[in-house]
């Protein structure tokens, strides 16, 4: 198990552990009975004291020579694709869905860009609304008990 120095790519999932991130490794598994491939998820915990990866980021993780705790077996190597901030690997330009960002900006400029519109240069980095308006950094659950306290992750 240990010292294989294996690199894996996966997606970061919401996690309550303090200095670890939960990474989902998704593989396709052949069902011999149906002769079809199905998704199979494996969850690994990667050591990440600075919390460099946020929920939804695609990250590279490397296996540790020996496991840190009972759960933590890997460490986060690099964030490859931050969620919602995709760069095209061929041209190196930022992309939104099917268009380059500078093409969108150019179109806006031609039509006369609105002053109030969103501006990438002024926008602060991701994560400022965590816990106030954006609750995607944790797992939500169906509210099962009313204890009179505020339960932000209850739906």
């Amino acid at each position, binding site marked *: 198990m240990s010292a294989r120095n294996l690199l894996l790519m996966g997606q970061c999932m919401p996690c309550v552990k303090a200095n670890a991130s939960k990474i989902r490794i998704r593989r396709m598994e052949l069902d011999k009975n149906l002769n079809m491939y199905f998704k199979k998820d494996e969850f690994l915990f990667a050591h990440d004291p600075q919390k460099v990866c946020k929920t*939804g980021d695609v990250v590279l993780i490397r296996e540790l020579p020996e496991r840190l705790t009972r759960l933590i077996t890997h460490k986060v190597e690099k964030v490859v694709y*931050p*969620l*919602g*901030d995709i760069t095209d690997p061929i041209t190196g330009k930022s992309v*939104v*869905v099917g268009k380059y960002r500078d093409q*969108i900006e150019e179109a*806006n400029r031609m*039509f*006369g*860009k*609105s002053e*109030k*519109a*969103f501006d*990438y240069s002024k*926008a*602060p*980095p*991701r994560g*400022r*609304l965590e816990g106030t*308006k*954006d*609750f*995607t950094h944790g*797992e*939500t*659950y*169906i*509210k*099962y*008990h*009313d*204890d009179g306290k505020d339960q932000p*992750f*209850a*739906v």
Partner: protein
Amino acid sequence: MNITPILRTGLYLANRPVVRQYAFKSDLKIKWVRPEKIPSIHPEKSGDCSKLSAVNPKELMLGFEKSKELETADAAVKSLFELGNNPYVNTTRYHSEQLIKEVQRHPLDYGSMEAKLARMTVFIRRYQQHMEEHPRDKKRKVILKEMIEKRKKFLKYLRRWDYRRFEWILEKLDLVYKPPPAEFHWITRKESLQKLTDIHCEKLRQEKLDEYRKTLEEQQIPFLEDAIKKMQFIRQEQIDLGIPVTVTEEDIEQNKKKLAELKAFREETKAAARKSN
């Protein structure tokens, strides 16, 4: 036939204390309160933090505000074009235009995700207002629910495409976004009580661990002080008796340093605790 095993199990069953596997009732005093059902169309579920603002009824309808004829027209004629004297749909259109103007990319932009979300938000808030006045309007209720779900889907997409724009739009439209829970289940008394018991047990465990930690920490300083004293004594004895010295000055110094560090750390934590209180 040998009946000894049967007799033995019978005896065992008779002597065993009664443990009920089924219909087990915990004697922990945990009170469970079923959360009140909030309809999905309510603002706290849909994530709308603010309502539509009140409009000045003297405001002109959309498309007439720049009219030169109306500027010089008679007051009675002008009043025919005021929002207050026209169907409410005109006020909604006015609201929609106002909110879209806040977020659109350029003056002709009505099809971008931001503009769509703004239009849907006004629609949802107007319909929520309508549902408060007419709670039995089932048709509009369904339309409203579908629109809320559609907006949530669009927010999900925008988050994936462009995270910073998503955050910006949440702030602009004053919305709260919560991802859906992993799986749906009905809220039952049994399951809720199981979860509450788990939380209770975890709390008990943590309390005991904290208590044990505290007792160990209390012993740390006296132990070190004692160790230093004993080491000094042993060293002195060894020197006096002329036998090989096993305790060096460095060991004692190291322990003294450790003790000083520990004392400083304790003082710091105490001061921090006092400050927070």
